């Protein structure tokens, strides 16, 4: 088991009022699962993603990632977990605009303290795996949306994370390019990568093997659709 949450709860206080963004979520994710989290906006799926991505800590509940309790860790320890265990893919790509594709992919390695030469090597390898090696010296502004997302995927994978966490990965792409990205995900999954995609699009969710729906901060359904 890669992920196990128990009673995961996130509560905000807005103007003296308590709002539960997430309430008692129990979720288990196996290694090499390909899972979609869906739900309408405001359902709490983004909050769940932030918690699973160790960007945030829960108000209550436990979160075991790789058998390690991570729900009570300090900022810096969480940064370390994100660096090693989680690869993020965002809707808006979130590449550094002034840095080359190669440098963008190198970033997680920089924060891991990998020496420059090895970093270079690994980043090129990651770019090669998404067929972007020939664009290594290009800046994001010189790349198409699909190419940017490939670079972002390379960056997410460069530290060989346990979990690839994608937030609306095709939201800013046309359907043809979106399809390409989904095929990349499928290939990665077939190679053993655990993937969680957060999306509100049914068509994207339907490509995964398991769909978890969130409503009002609770899991409303959990369906395995493919073997």
């Amino acid at each position: 088991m890669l992920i196990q949450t128990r009673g995961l709860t996130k509560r905000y206080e807005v103007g003296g009022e308590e709002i539960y963004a997430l309430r008692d979520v129990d979720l288990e994710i196996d290694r090499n699962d390909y899972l979609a989290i869906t739900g309408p906006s405001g359902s709490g799926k983004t909050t769940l993603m932030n918690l699973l991505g160790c960007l945030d800590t829960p108000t209550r509940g436990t979160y075991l990632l790789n058998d390690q309790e991570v729900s009570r860790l300090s900022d810096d320890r969480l940064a370390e977990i994100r660096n090693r265990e989680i690869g993020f893919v965002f809707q808006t790509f979130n590449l550094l605009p002034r840095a080359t594709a190669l440098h963008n992919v190198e970033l997680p390695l920089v924060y891991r303290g990998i020496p420059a030469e090895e970093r270079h090597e690994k980043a090129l390898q990651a770019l090669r795996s998404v067929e972007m090696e020939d664009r290594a010296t290009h800046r994001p502004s010189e790349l198409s949306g699909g190419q940017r997302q490939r670079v972002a995927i390379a960056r997410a994978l460069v530290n060989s994370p346990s979990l690839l966490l994608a937030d609306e990965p095709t939201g800013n792409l046309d359907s043809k390019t979106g399809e390409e990205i989904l095929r990349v995900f499928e290939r990665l999954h077939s190679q053993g990568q655990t993937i969680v995609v957060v999306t509100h699009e049914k068509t994207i969710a339907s490509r995964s093997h398991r769909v978890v729906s969130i409503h009002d901060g609770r899991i409303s359904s959990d369906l395995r659709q493919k073997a």
Partner: protein
Amino acid sequence: MPFLEGLLIALRALWANKLRSVLTVLGNIIAITSIVAVVSVIQGMNSYVENKVVGLGANVIVLRRGPYIVTSHEVAEQVQKRRRITTDDLSEIRRSVTSARFVGAHVSSPHRVRFRERYVDQVEIQGQGLPVLVPANFEVERGRLFSATEMERARPVVVLGYEVADRLFAGADPLGKDVKIDEVGYGVVGVAKEQGSVLGVSQDKIVAMPISSYQKQFGSQGSIEVPMEAVSDEAAASLKDEVRMVMRVRHRLKPQQEDDFALESAESLASFWKQISAAIFSAASGLVSLSLVVGGVVIMNIMLVSVTERTKEIGIRKALGAKRRHILWQFLIEAVALSTLGGILGVLLGWGLCFAIRAATPLPAIMSPWSVMLALVIVFVVGIVFGIYPANRAARLDPIEALRYE
């Protein structure tokens, strides 16, 4: 994250906003330019005062009618009313003072020096005793100094200053030639070594002759100076006392009366200069600290802007595993790099200013390595002090908030 990585990120960020970067560090540039220029000028003046303006060797004191540096009109008038220092005073000092190794004599006035149809005006004609104690670095380069016998007999012999020899003889050998000073003939026995100039005044436009010969032509009515060299460092103070007693007795001063003569030494001149330079320095450092504070606040402000502008970038970096200290370092290094950039530009500008001062004015200016070091240490500290707050703010940003920022 290695330091080099942080530095590269910082330099890239600064380069992306070239104009803004330079404008931001204007305060630093001005402050450092002033530090470097002021220190250079003071430094230059210091070495000048020590070597040249004072012109007195160690252990040398000079008996004069008044001090070298007169700071008010009243004092100048009062000095004019004092009794002259005469060759009789000189003889008495020679006879009775025990702590002097040498007792010289010195008197001078400007005159025209001529060789055939060439002449130089306003040459400082110096009547000198033996040995020559003032100026301290006086040295005969070619030929010889006048002898004791020539001194005794008031022979018409001269040692030409370097510039005088050069202008009158234009490369020809002056030794053995006759020059005219105010139409009185003198034989050239030597040429002095080149001295250079002090504050734009040539020290080589001189002619030295025996003081006896000087008084033969120009009369013995002018007050002379008596330079004396003490037998040792320790004897300098007692030499001063001895001369003072001799002169007070000769001038019949009562115990409560002040000295009506001056005893000058390299120290007394240098201390006067030190007072001036200390005043300049403290005024300058006040101005410099002010502009550094202004410069620092501007850097802090622009770093806060930079942190806000790059909130998204900070969010991305954090999502990818940057810890607080990584972000802190990144922005701190950027602030220090920015501040140091201002310092380096300031040093270059100050260097240029130093050259300009030297070229355009007689003020000497020496660029000293320690002023550059001082400047760089200062801007480094300014960068850290004013960079820590924005950097800390960046480091504490919540990754989710930062990622959401557009």
